[in-house]
Every structure is written in C-alpha cells, then in structure tokens.
C-alpha cells in the first residue's frame, strides 16, 4: 500500500526530516502490510452496547483550578491567558 507520508504527517501536524522520509516510508509500509493481514469481516460494527450503559454525572458545581495552577505549565502567558502565534481568522 502506497502511503502518502507527507499528507499523513501534515494531518498529524508532524514534519519528517528529508533524510528520514525514505526510512519512515519503508517502515510505515511494512507496518501497514502487517495490518492488512486482517481478513474482511462479515456484518456491521457498532460501538454501541446498551447492556453496559453509562452512569451520568449530577449537574453540581465543584471548585475549578486557581488560574496560576492552571497556567503553571504554560510555555508563555500574558494577561492571564496562554499566548500562541497570531491566529488569522
């Protein structure tokens, strides 16, 4: 299976160095070939399982994090917010 490494990398927000592209390409193709060993399966797939329903949470407020704790790991902050490169809408 021919994998479009550049396209997949872009979707994943990764960039592969030029020198490594060929190696990655080969490795990915081998791994995908392994994955392709799966035979076609009959029937349909649904992830829904009504026999195991989810317990829902009560709508009760719990304390939030203090802002300085929230931002303590942020690479760059300003005016109580996280800073990112300018986003053009």
């Amino acid at each position, binding site marked *: 299976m021919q994998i479009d490494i550049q396209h997949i990398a872009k979707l994943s*927000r990764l960039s*592969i160095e030029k020198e490594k592209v060929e190696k990655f390409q080969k490795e990915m193709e081998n791994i995908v070939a392994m994955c392709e*060993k799966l035979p076609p399966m009959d029937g349909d797939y649904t992830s829904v399982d009504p026999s195991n329903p989810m317990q829902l*949470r009560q709508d009760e407020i719990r304390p939030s994090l203090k802002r300085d704790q929230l931002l303590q*790991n942020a*690479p760059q902050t300003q005016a109580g917010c996280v800073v990112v490169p*300018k986003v053009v809408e």
Partner: protein
Amino acid sequence: MTAASLSEKLRKKECSAVEITRSVLEQIEKTEDKIGSFVTVCEEQALKKAEEVDRKIAAGEALSSLAGIPIGVKDNICTKDVLTTCSSKMLYNFVPPYDATVVSRLKQADAVIIGKCNMDEFAMGSSCETSYFKKTKNPWDPAYVPGGSSGGSAACVSAGEAVLSLGSDTGGSIRLPASYCGVVGLKPTYGSVSRYGLVAFASSLDQIGPLGRSVEDVANLYEVICGRDPMDATSAAREYGAFAQKINRSVKGLRIGIPKEYFGDGVEPEIKAAVLESVDRLVKEGAQTVSISLPSTDYALSAYYIISSAEASSNLARFDGVKYGYRAKDFTNLIDMYEKTRSEGFGDEVKRRIMLGTFVLSSGFYDAYYKRAKQMQQKIAQEYAEAFSQCDIILTPTSPSTAFRMGERTDDPLKMYAADICTVTVNIAGLPAISVPCATASNGLPVGMQMIGPKFSEQMLFDAAGCFENICGGFGVAPSVKA
C-alpha cells in the same frame, strides 16, 4: 523483602517506616547508575510520608497493608507537584496540579511513593529503549533490556529499589517487563482500575496494574487501587472485596486451557518447554489441562496496532506546545509551531504510531482498517468467551523469548512488535492476566508464564499463581546486581 513481611515488622515495631524508606533510598543510591529505573526519585516527599506513618504508628492508629511501603510509580501516572514526563521530551517539564486516582488511593493508604519509573516514551515500546531520558537496564544482566513499556517499574522491584510498583499495560507493558525481570505483574480486567490521571495511550486498552515480588504483595496493591471511580466513566460499577487475605493456594480441580496458537513456531523452544514443565507441576497439584484453540490469535497483532495507534493518534494530539510541555523555540506561525513542537518533542516510535493511527482513521480508510480491527476485536473476545466455557484459566508463555540485548531490535519495528504476540489478545478482550516467573533460561535470564482469566476473575488468578508460588518456594530471589 516483601511488602507483607515489612508490614508485619512495622506492626510489631521491629523497625520504623523511615528506616524502611532510608534503606530503599540507599539501595537506589547504590544501584541507580547501573540500572536507571527512575526518571525522578522523590527522596524528600518519601521521607516526609514515612515520618507521617511513624507518627500514626506511635499514636496507635490502625494502618493499611501498604502503610510505609516504598512504591515506584510509572512516569505516565500523574503525581501532583511531582514531575510527570511519560519519559518524553514533550513533557520534560510537566508538573501536574492533580493526582491520578490511583495515586490518591496510594496516599490514602499511607504508601510511600519513592520515585517515578522510567518507561518507553508514552508507553509505546517493548524494551524501555525509546525513553527520552535513559535506557533502563535489566537487573539480571545490564546488557539486556528490562522489557517495556513499564521497564522501570519492573526493574526497580527486581533490583530492590522499590518494594512494589505501579505500571500500565496496553498490549503487555506490565507483563512483559515483569517476565523479563523475574517479578510478578498483573494486568487487571479493563475497567477495574481507574484510568483517571493515566496519560492515555489507547483508551480502550490501557489499564494500570501492580508489580511486586510475591503474589500476596501484588494482590494487596491491586486491592488498594481497584474500584469504581466517578472520574472515569469506563470504570466498572461493581463492588470489590478483599483479595490478598482470601488467596486460596490450591489448583485442585482447576481446568487449565492450553491454547495451541501460543505454543507454535513464533515461541522459542526453550520458553515453550519451561512453561509446559510448569503446567506439569500444576497438574501434579490437582489441576487438569484442556487443549483449546484461539484461532484469531494470528490477527491479534494487526488488530492491536490498528486500534491502539488510532486511539493514540487522537490522544496525543493534545501535545501541541500550546498550554503545557515542550514548545519549539523558533517558528514562523501557528502551524509551524505545531509541526516543529511535535517533531522535536516526540521520538520516532511515537511518530510512527501517530502516523499509523492518523492513516487508519483518515478519510477513505476507516472501513478497511479501523472498522475491521474493531470487528476482529469482537471476534477475539468471543473466542475467549467460548474457550472459558471449557476451562477456568488459560495458560501461555508471557513472551516468545527472554529479554533480548540492548539495541538488538531497535532497527526493526516489526521485530520489536513481535515481543507482544502472547500478550496483546488479553488487552483486546479486556481480560485480566498475571505473569509469574517460572524458570531461568540457559542465558541466565528469567522466563515468565502468563495466566489469563475471564473478566473480574483476579481472585482465581491470585489463587492459581499463589499455588505456583508455593510450588516454587517463593519468587523472591533478587538477582545480585553486578558491581
């Protein structure tokens, strides 16, 4: 020394919690350079906690079985105010403002968290060699890998740098290193231990589990961490009783299923022989064997890599340099920041898995890969259910081989993935499985044996493993750490 015996000493006041912690810290001091189990050693916090335990003992308080026991915690489990890196450059400086639920339970049980254990980066690996910080060595022979991804968790217990540890298992990441390092490791039933605070790799497969030197110790730790957590919607709504005290070390009448697919060409002959010989010993104690088949085992690795990578590609997308962790230094715009941060912050194995996951979920490929893998998952679970109608537990080798040499498989991802062939089906089916040491191979390294049970049958696994432990006269032989 096991946790059980140390706990006994504490109760009898034959030693103090501080003394226990200090002696473990000394062992770490002596051993860490050679083994490298830890990313972070929590000396100050550990001693503080030990002092607290001693105060409680002096005040005559009744304490849990884990009080004062030094425990290592895998570095993908969040510990409040203590560095949690997942052994990745991406989280090299991440200090969580919260504890994982299992960590809160450890603290409530007055356990002493001695350090954060090294691992394969983001739990992706079978040898602990993809860690950004260091390569942990196998305490039995430092030229060999300890296994992965919970390599540090297994090594620290094996080398006496901790009495117990917590690891995580997605495709074998507790059982494999347990078997390579000659310790006991349990991957619990999916949903029996809260995942809140475990940095997610594959959400539908991940479970936190205990590693230790004895079955009783592992059962004690499991007892403390298991149970419904309202913060984890996938944690099962059920009551759990005591486990350790109820261990019944008998296999009389136990039907042991031997699946032919796990004793085929993919497994080294010496391993097969060792495991089958252990089965004979169990039969002598009253167990019966049943030949069974798990026909879809051949497809398990494919299904596993599709499902786990798909979920991982989504779970790791949050590492984008915006609000925590590593951010690239130079970039021209937002997309450039994302790409540089993620390319510089992640190692190659992580990138491979992210790309595989993105690929199988991408437009046009979902049906051929992800959907098919999920259908295979249901089939594998079905086959196990059928097998369990004929037997009580299923017994296999934990891995096709013993530990391998450092660097031996790092150039070939598929060769590395092959270490998981005996363990992945268990995660796919959400079942519990325990790995116990069953022999020493001709290369001097431990061989591990795996017992798999139906969902929520941990007690039965402890019983059977406990019986085997008795037969062996205990697992507690720690290797001499080469000077």
